[in-house]
């Protein structure tokens, strides 16, 4: 039964990361789209909406870059560490 324990332990971590990145980033992206739409709605130009929108897109792009970094690092036998909050590339143990 030890496998079930390991699996459930892994599963909730994957679920948490999945919700944060897999649902969180698309939601930020959708908010970005909403901001851009608001920025030029009704003939009024709202620079704040544009700034907010592109800011949100930038966060999403950072998330995607994190994904690419992870894939490349894994391919080279490295791992990503989040112990300093910001990700760093470390040798795989």
């Amino acid at each position, binding site marked *: 039964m030890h496998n079930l324990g390991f699996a459930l332990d892994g599963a909730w971590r994957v679920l948490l990361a999945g919700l944060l990145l*897999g649902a969180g980033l698309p939601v930020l992206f959708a908010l970005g789209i909403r901001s*851009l739409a608001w920025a030029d709605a009704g003939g009024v130009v709202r620079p704040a909406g544009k700034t907010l929108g592109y800011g949100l897109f930038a966060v999403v792009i950072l998330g995607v870059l994190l994904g690419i970094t992870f894939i490349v690092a894994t391919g080279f*036998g490295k791992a990503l560490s989040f112990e300093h909050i910001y990700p760093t590339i470390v040798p795989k143990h």
Partner: protein
Amino acid sequence: MTQASVVLALVVVTALAFDFTNGFHDTANAMATTIATKALKPKTAVALSGILNLVGAFLSVQVALTVTNAVVKIQNSNGTPKAALVSDGGSALLLIILAGLVGGIVWNLLTWLLGLPSSSSHALFGGLIGATIAGLGWAGVNWNGDGSKLDGVVGKVLLPAILSPAIAGFVALVGTWIIHRITAGLAARYTDQGFKWGQIGSASLVSLAHGTNDAQKTMGVITLALIASGDWTDTKNIPFWVKVACALAIALGTYLGGWRIIRTLGKGLVDIAPAQGMAAQSSSAAVILASSHLGFALSTTHVATGSVLGSGLGRPGAQVRWRVAGRMVTAWLITLPAAGVVGAAMWGIGHLIGGLAGALVVFAVLVAAAIGVWFRSRRAPVGSHNVNDDWDPVAAEEPVPDAVPVHAADVPATLPTPELTKGRV
């Protein structure tokens, strides 16, 4: 050329063939939603996915030599084959690998014919398990690991298969639901264009991750065969030609596009809107990468299918075709035993005939099965031209133009009829 090197060549060719089926079987995981929402043209999508798989395969410098250790005991923990299996020049091990690969390929071809997304890794593992049971008995299978980590058939195959679609589905459901709340009432010119790029980005991530993970498995299997036959000794590196061949095989397979499976996943399961497509693809990408980071091996296919299903449940008013979902789940359940039965039968045939002739017969069975499946598939071909057709034929036939003039009887009989209908059809 000795007999042993001919058998080795057959194993290598079969492994590359498996890699190729792995490619076209899994194109759908990355690109089905992108194609269904028309974010990319079908041909463009498979080309992009193929290129990213190629790049991904070359990115993997790490050696996945111990890939079979998850389910069978034919290798030591450092990747070298068990001594008992190579005492006769490696032919015992080569036969197990060959039979296992054939089991995996046959199952991949059959599920492709039925348009069912099933896990290629599970098919490979199933084939290897079957061939190992036939060759070494039940004790040759690593059922439950040694208790120190998630391992064995239960830990690496069965539990992830249950958990991964549920996790991915829930993430996609939450994402889809919130996104629809946020963008409700916005003009399509904002949402469609935006979500198009969101989908392309997330689908690209899935393709790249697929190339790094899945091509590595075949590289590991081929290298194991080379070590077994004494043609390679280094367990820290793989021959460069193996890497090139595997990368090309998976990329070509991906580019070919398993259109039948793309159609099921993109059109059959749920009707996907661009926002759902992005939510589903992002969920897949995040769950695959997170699980790979945490050492919790998931099947890309199960994750992608769960995501699409979740995105169908999350959009208000969207309809999920549960019959299609049921067929997929059935396919997942029987993937392992079905590939196992084929693997075991192939080992039996090869062992009975023995030697080079046995390996040749096993290979001939594979070729015959592949040709058979191909001809059967031609009866109802699915390709880039019809991949996006409506799933229910009734809906597609509805807009039949009424070509017959309503008042045909009132028209003077002297007028030639073609004149009448001109411009109406």
